[in-house]
Each structure stands twice: as C-alpha cells, then as structure tokens.
C-alpha cells in the first residue's frame, strides 16, 4: 500500500474518532452545565480542545451556546467539528479508491450534515442535545459502514490503528478536562458529572454493574483508564491498537515493524500492570501526561516507518 494512502486512512480515522470524542465531550459538559448549582465554566474544555487564548476563552466560558457554536460550526476554530470532519473527508477523498463506496458516501453525508447552514441556528435556539445526537449518529453510521463494508486488509489495519490511538488520547483528555480544573483531587467533582460522562460514553450500566458502591471518582478513573471491557477505556484502546498493528507483521518492512511494535508493547504492558491506587499516587494528571507522551511516540514512529513519503 502507498505510504500516503496508509497515512490518509490513518488520519481519516483519527479525525473521525476525534469528532466523536468532541461531540460526546460537548454533550457531557452541556448536560452537566444544566444541572450544576454553581455557574458552569467551559474553560477547561476550551483549554484542552481549542487553541483559544486565555483572554478569549474568558469571554465565552460561561456561555454554553457560544461554546457549542464555536466548537461545532465555527470555521475559524481549527479544531471545530466542521473542520475536523472536513479534514477527515479530505483524507478520504485522497484515498477514495481504497475505501468502499459506502464509506465514502457515508462521509459525504456526514460532511454535508456538519456544513448544513441550519446547524448553527439549532445549536443556538433548539435543544443542543438532540442536535449533537444527530451528529453523533452520523459518526456511528460511519463506524458501522466501515466495519461491514471494508475489506480486512492493510488499509483496514491502518484505519483501526488511527482509530484506537486517537481514542486512547481522547479518553485521556476527557478525564484530564475535569480533573485539571478540580486540581486533580478525585473527591472534588460532583457525581452528576461522572454520570453524564458515563452515560454519553454508554458506560453507565457497565459502571453500575462493576462498582456497586455508588459514585466514586476513583472507580470512574478505573473504568476509563483500566477497564478492559469498556470500549472507551485507555487500556481497551491500546490493546486494540496493538492487535491491529500486529496484522502488519507480514506486510514487509521488518525493521519498521519492530520499532513500532516495541513502543506499543511497552505501553501495553505498562498499563496492564497499573492499578488505580498507583495512578492516584502518581497523580492522575501526571499519569495521563505520560500515557499521552508515549502514544505520541507511537504516532511519530508510525510516521517515520510507515508514512514517510513526501
């Protein structure tokens, strides 16, 4: 497979995963903003998910509708949904002959949906949750379509490598959003936030079944970082990343394979032998920073060994 094609598939997938992560993050925070007693601040979200300067962020930090518009439809925001989906589609466009027609059409529909002029109005005037849900569904449609129609070759492996690498990063970021604001003190966050977080990631029921003792920040961290059965967890994402990467073993490029395999393997075993207590001891933020750093190393190694073409 052309290096550029692998690169584009990988990025298409990363962008789509990022779109999903952002939408769900917005949903949690919006829902939470409606239930909070004190005034809800979007500052941590803006800090982690945009390049906004502090002063700028201050001007809209307490205006949910303005943040939603900025994060979803604002073309000036490089990390807005509309830009991310456009990037995903541009990447797909460059490899149209390597994805199925169904996947391409699906992305086209997603693209046209995020560019719909009525979207900004809906976010402003109507129920934002319903509007975000419509967009989340576009993403789900893509996941299903890719799963059902794409051949299980090298391209599929790169799509999944991108997807799970991005997902691990997103999950780490979403945890970081709230904790960075609460100064990484597990006890300072209101339990309704956890509920919304788990709900919007479809992890609420799993949580209830796993941890019978009610809401405890530590358990939430446990589920999002270390629960192997939770498809949004960091460990699940890294296990999947490793699994799809291993499919490249016999595609030639032995030295490249070994380099990347080493980095993924190292990360995988580190996280496998981590407990929530260890995370607490290290400090969640520090721990997440370390995981994110190692994920970036994997990304760089992929870049160098598989995607170098220009």
């Amino acid at each position: 497979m052309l290096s550029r094609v692998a690169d584009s598939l990988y990025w298409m997938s990363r962008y789509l995963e990022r779109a999903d992560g952002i939408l769900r993050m917005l949903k949690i925070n919006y829902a939470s903003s409606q239930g909070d007693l004190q005034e809800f601040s979007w500052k941590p979200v803006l800090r982690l998910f945009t390049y906004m300067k502090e002063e700028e962020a201050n001007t809209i930090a307490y205006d949910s509708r303005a943040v939603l518009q900025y994060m979803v439809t604002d073309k000036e925001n490089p990390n807005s949904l509309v830009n991310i989906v456009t990037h995903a589609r541009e990447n797909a466009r460059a490899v149209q002959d390597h994805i199925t027609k169904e996947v391409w059409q699906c992305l086209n529909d997603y693209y046209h949906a995020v560019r719909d002029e009525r979207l900004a109005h809906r976010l402003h005037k109507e129920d934002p949750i319903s509007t975000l849900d419509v967009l989340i569904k576009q993403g789900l449609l893509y996941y299903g379509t890719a799963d059902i129609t794409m051949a299980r070759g090298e391209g599929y492996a790169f799509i999944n490598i991108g997807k799970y690498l991005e997902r691990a990063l997103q999950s780490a970021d979403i945890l970081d959003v709230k904790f960075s604001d609460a100064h990484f003190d597990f006890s300072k966050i209101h339990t309704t936030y956890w509920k919304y977080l788990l709900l919007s990631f479809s992890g609420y029921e799993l949580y209830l079944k796993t941890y019978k003792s009610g809401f405890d920040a530590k358990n939430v961290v446990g589920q999002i970082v270390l629960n192997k059965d939770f498809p949004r967890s960091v460990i699940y994402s890294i296990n999947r990343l490793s699994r799809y990467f291993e499919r490249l073993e016999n595609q030639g490029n032995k030295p490249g394979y070994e380099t990347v395999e080493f980095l993924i393997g190292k990360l995988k075993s580190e996280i496998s032998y981590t407990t929530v207590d260890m995370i607490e001891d290290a400090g969640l933020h520090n721990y997440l920073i370390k995981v994110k750093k190692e994920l970036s190393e994997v990304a760089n190694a992929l870049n160098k060994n598989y995607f170098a073409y220009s």
Partner: protein
Amino acid sequence: MQTSELLNNYDVDAGTWDEMYKDSAVREQYRAVVDFMQQLSVEELNKKEELARGLFMTQGITFTVYSSGEGIEKIFPFDIIPRIITASEWSYIEEGIKQRLKALNLFLKDVYNEQFIIKDGVIPAEMIYSCPHYLREMYKFPVPYDIYVHIAGIDLIRNSDGSFYILEDNLRTPSGVSYMLENREITKRLFPDLLPKNNVRTVNEYPNILHKNLVSLSPRQIANPTIVVLTPGIYNSAYFEHTTLARMMGVELVEGRDLVVDNHRVYMKTTAGRQLVDVIYRRVDDDFLDPLIFNPNSMLGVAGIMSAYRKGNVAVVNALGNGVADDKAIYAYVPAMIKYYLNEDPLLRNVPTYQLSKPEEKELVFSNMNKMVIKKTNESGGYGMLMGHSASDEEIYNYKQEILKNPRQFIAQPIISLSSSPCYMNGKLVPRRVDLRPYALCGPNGVEIVPGGLTRVALKKGSLVVNSSQGGGSKDTWVLSV
C-alpha cells in the same frame, strides 16, 4: 394533456439543427423516450431530477470551486433527458475520428523525428516552432509503439444542416470521461428498463479497454505490471475522475510525492518499501511532470521521470508534447495532414479557421468581428474566448489590441450555431445547444472508441458555450445499436 404540457414550449431556433425535432415531428430515435416522458407527471419528472442531484452529491461527483479561501462543492449540472445518436450517425463519427487520430499520431511522430511534413512545405516550420507546446525535449525521443495519443477527446458540433464538424482535438489530458460513465449509471437509476428497450449500446467497456492498453505498454513483459494514475491531487477539478478511473481499473492512484526516480526507474513509496512502476497514466500537464526538465517549481511531478521514460523503463500516457497537435492554429492543418499521411479525404470536416498571424486573414477577421469566435491557440476549457456576436464594442476593441500584440496566439472561426437537444426545465422540454465529446483509445492494435461520449449542453437559452467552467452542463449520451 401532459403531452402538450411537456412539449408545447419546444421552439427550435431558426437555422438550427435539432436532435429531437424535424419539421415539428419527433425524430424516430427520440420517439420511445418522448413517449416514456409523457407518461410521467411533472411531479414525477421533478422527483427524478431531484434524485439525480442527490445521487451526484452523495457519490461526491463534484468539482470544487474555491472562493474567498473556502471550497464550495458543485455538481456538474446534469440534464435528465439523454442525447441520442443513431447507429448510422455513430459509424460515420467513429470512422471519422479513427481517421483523424491516425493522422494526428503520425503527425506527432513525424514532427518529433524526421519532420517530412515541414520539409515538404505542408506546414510551415514557424507554425511548429512557435507553438509553446512543441517540446524540444521530445525530439527523437523513443515512444513505445510510436503511439503519442493514447487517449483523446474529440469535440464535435453539428451545423444547421446536421453535418458534423470537428471543433477541437484534445490530445493532452482530456477530461470528462468519468461523466460519460457516471451519467449512464444515473440514467439507469432514473429510468429503469429504458436503456435495454431502446437498444442503447453500453459504455462500460471504457475502463477495461484503457486498462488493457496500459498493460500492453508495460516495459516489463509480466502478467501483472504496476500501473498508476498520476493525479495533481484532491484540489484538481478533475480529481473525482482520476479516482473513478483508478478504481474502475483497479490500479493505484498516486500523486507526484508518492513516486521517486532512482537509477532511471520509477518507484512508488509503499508501507513495505519501494515498488517499481511500469506504466503511468498521468493527469498532470507536461510542464509540471518533471521539475528537472520543465517547470523547476513544480511540486506535482517527479524529478527524473523523463530519464526513466527515455530509457524505456516506464511508459507515460499520453506522451509529452502532444500539445503541438491540438494547438488551435495547427488545427487548421489537420485536413492537410490526413491527406498527406493517409492519402485520404477527411471524413469529418474542420470548422474554417483563420490564422491571425497571417495579415490578410487578420484583416478579414477584423472587419467581420461580430460573426467570429476568437480563441487563444494554447488555451482550452473556453478560457480567453471572444464571441463576436455578443461582445460589446469595447470588448472587441480591447481584444483586437491583445491580438495585435501576439497574433500567433489567436485564431478565428465563423460562429457555428451548434445543434439543439431537448432539456428538462421546470416541467417542460426546451431546446438547448449541445456538443459531443467521444473518447478514443489508441493501443498497439489500433483505435477503439466506446459508443457514447460526453454531451455538453449550454444551459442558458441561446448560449453557444458549453464548457463546464462557463455554465455548461452534461447529458447522458446514447448510441443506438440499430
């Protein structure tokens, strides 16, 4: 009731050949289609139009227009009523194009080698050497099987008496064939069963023939040579077509940065290392193909590719330097070429063409500007054109000044009216002007033309300009087998 609704506004312009009507009666070849349309209500027809638009959008069959830094996706407007060509009309067109291409290919070989046609005074040397597309780099350059034009799009129009004329030859990187293929797919969806009932010949063979020809050019005599389509990238307006062709042939779509030349061989960069490339169907213009030899600022090409090509390690399709044969000033000499190389009379006629570099012809043109269309010799796509009958005095004056600066860059042709063909607009059929671009493929075994082509239509009433860049649309083109 519906019958008259659909057709009662169909007023053919005086002195125009209409594809559907003859003496206010529907021509034989259009009868079945007209009957079918008349069974449908306006709502149903509108729905079909809507369906067509939706299909184009969903499939991403769009071109991107950039304005104020933002890309706007547009579909090439599609008219749901097919343009129909009879079997006998087609066989005439087919023979005519085959003959023309044979001569053009021989001309290219000659002009880049012995130059007999110049030595015999059929075409003045100046005409050749002043053409910006005459590539001195192609002189005595070995080209596989002596084929320069592998893919050609020949534009035809019909005069008021219905006879076909060649408007221009496109021998460099002609585009639009994906519309020929996609328009047919849309028709299948819009009008179930209509195609088989009408004995319409299939166009599906196009990618197979092209692929077969590309395989035959491979320097390595192996069963499965590596063939690539080289695209300038996703911002190119024909990017959709590049993708479609690569997909339909099952070959790799590459950009310049995917390729590297080493030791006079072209490789593509893959996740498993370099892979040797045998045949390149390039959709990148000559000037951008090799920054070492041509435009040094090009980022779309591959440095060193000419060397690999010269050594016969890779085949490049179309050959470089073809622009000398589709230059609008050289166009005037094509009938002479046919006579010179083939000793035959041209089957398809040329539109009379005046060279503005010839003083006496320039005078003639200048005193009849309102009856002329003036074109730049090295531009295509309807750019830089002046339609004398609709231009203002000032436009004409300014254009004359342009011509005087560099007359070799201009030719003039009398305005030919173009035939009209029915288009569906707001519940009615209305006549709009059309041209026709069939696609010819030349391989080691000769010229093959898929029965069909791209019919471009000027959607504005009375307009004679069909180019997509100038507000034109397209139609499915049916060639009937009987």
